[in-house]
């Protein structure tokens, strides 16, 4: 593509086009294989190196309201009500006095980012359900947040999975305000939006009521393998 108005007889090379295609081609490869590259680096070198790469292993903090509700530990209350035998309000100390569960998992957001090796500690949701006594007609749980905007839902069976917890520790320290502290839900086998932050109340109900993100188009059952049925047979998810 030698422009006619350039007088030199010197041969021209379309370097511009080549660099343009090179850069955009590299980006396309990155989109196609970026997940594999990150997973490989994470597995080969641990999350330390992945954390140094831009784009890798980093939490993106979302908030529906644009603010973080700030709750003092001593003011924190978790109200459990609805189809239960003994409605109860838990303080943070009440939760910490219950049997503790901890594990390390990859946190996966539905939008594509992930953080491997996140350590969680808290109380099994099934322990909380047992403490209040679920009535037989109960089918689902509805979760509410101190931000007064987010809501979530789980079926009773989902809530009884062994890696669904009410978490008060994350990354080896109390859950920070921006991560949903002092207490948040953590639903390990599903995408991050199911793990409601600033958990304020659990209502036991007759049927699943789609939460905030579900009303905005996300699947009610956001399993990490991409399936959206009420149950998931894949044991590697739990």
């Amino acid at each position, binding site marked *: 593509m030698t422009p006619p108005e350039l007088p030199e007889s010197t041969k021209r090379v379309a*370097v511009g086009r080549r660099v343009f295609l090179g*850069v955009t081609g590299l980006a396309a490869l990155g989109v196609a294989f970026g997940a594999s590259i*990150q997973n490989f680096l994470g597995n080969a070198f641990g999350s330390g190196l992945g954390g140094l790469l831009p784009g890798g292993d980093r939490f993106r*903090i979302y908030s529906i309201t644009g603010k973080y509700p700030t709750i003092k530990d001593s003011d924190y209350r978790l109200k459990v009500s609805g189809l239960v035998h003994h409605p109860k309000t838990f303080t943070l100390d009440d939760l910490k006095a219950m049997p503790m569960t901890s594990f390390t998992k990859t946190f996966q957001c539905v939008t*594509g980012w992930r953080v491997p090796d996140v350590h969680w500690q808290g109380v099994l949701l099934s322990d909380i359900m047992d403490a209040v006594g679920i009535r037989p007609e109960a089918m689902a749980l509805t979760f509410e947040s101190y931000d007064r905007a987010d809501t979530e839902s789980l079926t009773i069976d989902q809530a009884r999975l062994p890696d669904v917890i009410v978490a008060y520790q994350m990354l080896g320290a109390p859950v920070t305000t921006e991560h949903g502290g002092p207490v948040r839900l953590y639903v390990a086998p599903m995408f991050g939006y199911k793990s409601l932050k600033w958990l304020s109340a659990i209502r036991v109900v007759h049927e699943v009521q789609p939460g905030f993100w579900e009303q905005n188009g996300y699947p009610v059952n956001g399993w990490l393998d991409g399936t959206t049925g009420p149950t998931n047979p894949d044991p590697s998810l739990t």
Partner: protein
Amino acid sequence: MTVAPTTTRRVAHLMRFDRVQRTAHWANAALFGALIFTAIPLYFGSFFGVVLPRHLIEQIHLWSGLALPIPIIISLLGPWGRSMRRDVRRVNAWTREEIRWLQTRGRSTLEADKFNPGQKLNAIFIGAVILVMLVTGSMLQWFRFFSVSLRQGATFVHDVFAFAIFAVVIGHIFMAVTHRDSLRSIFKGWVSEQWAAAHASRWLKESRDAEGSVDSP
């Protein structure tokens, strides 16, 4: 070809960037600026809420991103875009001498075009990353149409390129403020013949061959 610095001759001017190019440049710069400044709190989540609520920051980032190609497209298309189109051809077509100059990092001789190979590379890079960031950003915004693996890849590319863009833009601004004559030309359009003789001798020769009419065919 050189003009003695002590000359009392009236300084002749060459138009380096016409009004369309200047407008496109500053519109593009404003959008890049808005994108970079909103990207920082979005990437480093802990800053958020300091100046603007997060959803406002997100909206600014989204709309600036979607608008990003508009200044270049408008300035290229249409009857007003002749200089812009000619400069795109300049940036694309390199002589062997220019390739060698880049390979030797500026140590080989060069009869410089209107833009030197480094400037050409900057322009190509910016053009390419506009496309890359627009596509990957759209994948992140309308993620439901893509698999989780592709979303993760798009996040990865968007972030890596953001760092590269940040570095290149800082370099671009540094070169601009340390080269006053070039800097003036993106505000006022013109450079002196003296400057052109020193930094863009091939362009100056072409402009003279085109019989006085500055940078026209």
